[in-house]
């Protein structure tokens, strides 16, 4: 088992407008990216579980070949800067995804 953070070059979160969070996983090379894609480790159910939110709040999971990247876009529980909100820029919501374990093939 490896975490996504172990195999990715970057795992980041950021606002995409005041009401969405977008999480980017960028892989260091094409081979790692292809391996990750072939394992299909992320779907709405998995990501919703990592963040404790309904699957309907996970809006998009997009594979972006030109950057060897996978993007996940979700609704924020609260808009950026709303009362009770904790992360105006949305820049520190990446950890559950980064620490998510996947069945990585040995030797890759």
């Amino acid at each position, binding site marked *: 088992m490896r975490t996504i953070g172990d195999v990715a070059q*970057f795992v980041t979160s*950021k*606002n*995409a*407008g*005041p*009401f*969405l969070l*977008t999480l*980017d996983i*960028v892989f260091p090379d094409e081979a790692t990216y292809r391996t990750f894609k072939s394992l299909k480790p992320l779907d709405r159910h998995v990501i919703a579980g*990592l*963040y*404790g*939110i309904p699957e309907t709040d996970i*809006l*998009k999971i*997009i594979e*972006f070949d*030109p*950057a*060897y*990247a996978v*993007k996940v*876009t979700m*609704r924020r*529980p*609260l*808009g*950026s*800067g*709303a*009362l*009770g*909100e*904790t*992360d*105006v*820029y949305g820049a*520190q*919501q990446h*950890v*559950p995804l980064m620490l998510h374990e996947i069945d990585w093939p040995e030797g890759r």
Partner: protein
Amino acid sequence: MGVRGAAGGQLSEASIHRMTVLAPEGMLGYGIPVRSMEEGLARNPDVLAVDAGSTDPGPYYLGAGVPYTSRRAVKRDLAMMLEAANARRIPVLIGSAGGGGGRPHVAWLVDVYREICRERGYRFRTATIQAEIDKAWLQAKMAAGRVTPLDISDPLTAETIDAATRIVAQMGDEPFQAALDLGAEVVIAGRACDASVIAALPIRAGFDRALAIHMGKILECGGAAAYPRHGSDSLLGVIDGESFTVEPPNPDKICSVASVAAHSLYERSDPYRLALPGGAIDLTRTTFEQITPRAVQVRGTRFAPAPYTFKLEGVRRAGFRTITVAGTRDPILISQIDAYLENVRNRVREVYGSDGYRLLFHVYGRDGVMGGLETAKEIRSHELGLVIEVVADDAETSAAILALSRSAALHSTYPGRKAIAGNLAFPFSPSDLRAGEAFEFTIHHLVEVADPLELFRVEMIDS
């Protein structure tokens, strides 16, 4: 091959095979590196274009009508741009002036601009473009069914419009072109789609809209699309008939296919599609090619026209905020932090009731960073940080309720308590900090319009 001095003039099609845009930085006031500016200008750019705003720092700045950049820093960067514009007579385009891009934000930047011109004796034909929305106009659009939610599920209501402190719309490239048509050499615009600021002159010169906007989308963050990605920096874009090329003027940085492609992900919900006023750019057939060790060429981006819509951004004032910051090192308290805070809340409720204010606890070490998205239940820290926050309708009520919350948190007892002199360590005196007005985003919608210029008044002003 440039079109020097072309601002306001007719551009002869035959003379323009390519156009160079210099984005001196990703955000006006973040610090243009001197060397990057010099190297960038050595490439004879046809225009200096910069984005000056964002919703990213949250709702306060739009609501309060204040910039989130420092006046001194903005003046320094703008003076560098104007010095180049004065020497070379190339246009300067600024979008989302003052951060929020509302009327007071534009006025603030115009004031900085005039101060520079006065001190240095610069004279430019100058245009402002306002982006603040008239509420009556928006009520009529809403009533006519021309407003739809974006990223949120709530339809816009008359009450939400009435309660809004300020509403702006993001303009496209057309109002910038209109200002250039009037002969403007410097354009200071309110809220604008960041890519449109950079794309405006190339589109006006007849270059492909999709490529110009895609180039704008990369340049709007300045050097962010180059590696190593640290500090505010500049980026050059050169557009020709079939492609555009991006390259950092800073010789210590490079654009790689990875750095440019990865930038398509940044702060966007979908890397393949970017919606703008009047359509979207589509990256499904875009290719990125390393044409020199430091430059990347992009081609194949397409434009998909759509009905003309503008993105609206609006905030309402939620009240006045007071906060205090404290911490505990006591494992007996930490083990029952939730019950202890509920006890504090009840104590406040006994005095002030439960309506007319919000009392919020930010507990660092428990879920202070992720709030509702935190799934870890176990606290493993040896200390906890606590920010107590009160938001109420007026500043005095807010301060009074916060003061009671703070003293209740300091002195309330809990089972097994040993430290009876006080529960919290406060790092500051005074402990209670008045944070001023608190705002929330309430409007994030699209409004359909008939004319790209419908909302945005171009006005020529004195420099």
